[in-house]
């Protein structure tokens, strides 16, 4: 799942665990220093060795989320209540195809370059094109500042994105070439992977890459007996109930007109029936999204090649 809390917390330990800080009495801030032989990034302007997010020092720590009643943004629980989506194609002048998606506060951009010659000759496939995906988070996209250097989470997400998109793209039509999909998360407010899939498929379509169908993504968060669709960052990272039963997240990539699932990713612990119900909910969510994406694409096409009657 996108940046789940475990990873974020452990990467925070880079700047020193706060437990140690709070128990130390003789120094204002207790930082851990590392032996200096550690390789440093000399291709960027360097700041201090370590720094900590102010959120670690909050006066009153944020409480747990309620597990019932309406959600923080007013949406409904246990219903296919997706956030309003704002989509647009063809924003980046330099790219072959591009798309921007905004769902709640989650903001993503995707650019598609290619098809072009493969970079490495030994990877050239004579029969089939190569699809490469790269998903990155802007350093300011999450509540905690991220590093410029791509972490394993980003690579993991890139791979999942790749797996969700590949079945939809007619790669056999692009022999010996590669198609690059770059996704940049500008603001992470949950359900990043799902929206990245949608955004990337839209950008691919905008680039005129032949596809069997659009790929739409939707995710849910199961929290005990209830679930939330299209969870926000806080909903993703904070669980309200104590029991670990049926706690987890699920992201589905779906080809709506073929009615096929191209990618499914789940984490946490869920019962079999909960999971199948979750998949069904996600598909429903995708169908809600479908007309919006279709409209945006139609608009982009109309703009690129206006029908002769208009001109």
């Amino acid at each position, binding site marked *: 799942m996108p940046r789940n809390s475990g990873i974020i917390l452990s990467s925070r330990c880079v700047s020193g665990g706060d437990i140690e800080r*709070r128990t130390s*009495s003789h120094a204002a*801030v207790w*930082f851990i220093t590392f032996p200096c032989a550690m390789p440093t990034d000399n291709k960027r302007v360097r700041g201090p060795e370590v720094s900590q997010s102010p959120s670690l020092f*909050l006066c009153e720590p944020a409480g747990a989320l309620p597990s019932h009643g309406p959600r923080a943004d007013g949406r409904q629980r246990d219903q296919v209540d997706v956030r309003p989506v704002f989509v647009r194609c063809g924003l980046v002048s*330099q790219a072959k195809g591009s798309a921007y998606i905004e769902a709640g506060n989650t903001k993503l*951009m995707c650019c598609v370059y290619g098809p072009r010659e493969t970079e490495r000759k030994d990877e050239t496939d004579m029969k089939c094109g190569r699809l490469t995906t790269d998903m990155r988070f802007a350093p300011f*996209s999450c509540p905690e500042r991220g590093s410029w250097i791509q972490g394993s989470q980003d690579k993991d997400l890139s791979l999942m994105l790749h797996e969700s998109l590949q079945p939809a793209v007619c790669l056999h039509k692009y022999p010996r070439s590669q198609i690059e999909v770059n996704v940049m998360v500008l603001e992470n407010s949950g359900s990043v992977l799902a929206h990245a899939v949608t955004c990337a498929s839209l950008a691919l379509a905008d680039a005129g890459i032949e596809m069997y169908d659009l790929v739409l993504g939707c995710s849910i968060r199961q929290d005990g007996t209830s679930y939330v669709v299209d969870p926000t960052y806080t909903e993703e990272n904070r669980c309200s109930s104590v029991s670990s039963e049926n706690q987890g997240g699920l992201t589905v990539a779906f080809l709506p007109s073929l009615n096929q699932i191209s990618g499914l990713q789940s984490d946490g612990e869920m019962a079999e029936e909960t999971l199948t119900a979750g998949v069904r909910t996600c598909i429903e969510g995708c169908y809600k999204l479908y007309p919006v994406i279709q409209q945006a694409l139609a608009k982009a096409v109309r703009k690129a090649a206006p029908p002769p009657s208009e001109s």
Partner: protein
Amino acid sequence: MAAGFKTAEPLEYHRSFLKENCRPDGRELSEFRTTTLNIGSISTADGSALVKVGNTTVICGIKAELTNPTVEAPGKGYIVPNVDLPPLCSSRFRPGPPSEQAQAASQFVADVIESSEVIQTEDLCIERGKLCWVLYCDLMCLDYDGNLLDACTIALLAALKNTKLPEVTISTETPEVNLAKTRGLHIHKHPVSASFCVFDDSILIVDPTAEEESLKTAQLTVVTDEEDRLCTVHKPGGTSLSGEKLQECISRATARQREIQKLIDKVTRSVKTAQ
């Protein structure tokens, strides 16, 4: 036909326009592209701004974190600007560590901050020798169509003006952060840059596009503040320019500074009144 000419002989194509004192996109030689500014759009950042100069788009997000000041400068905080040119913004950039251009841009932004004293690092000190702020100014290009440096400086300045720091009190030796109480940064100067390209060793054009940049023989960036003082005159090599030509650029840069400062001020005010 024109498209073919443009692809085959890009230099001749541009020359034929410059002869007529205009440019392929219809601008005059000393005309900037439309500059659009949007501030505060990233809620996860402490300050943010999105700037578009023509097609070139740069987003700046500022994140403030707490750290110890250095032993050499116990009363100072840090500002860490970094420019990233991800492969997303143009096909000319490859994934991997920052390219030379990105590194040079990062250094340029760092130099502008230091030379102009837009923010005095003393303002970022919370307790001398113990605790201070570090402002990570991460600039990311989303669409590269030339004139990266101008877009970066505007984005940085607007984002800094938009930045709100929470109040920090030190009680019993540990800092306490109060998110409810925030304050803005004290912006001492308003440095704004103007970039120029030299064409065929003599013709000066303003605000070059990516295509114009690839055909240039020299590039020049002048940064001025509201008191008409120069903060940076950055010309990394290329064909030579006389003092007179430089003076022309400086005059244009001064006018540009006024224009942009007014834009930033107005947009910042519009946010305040809206709240």
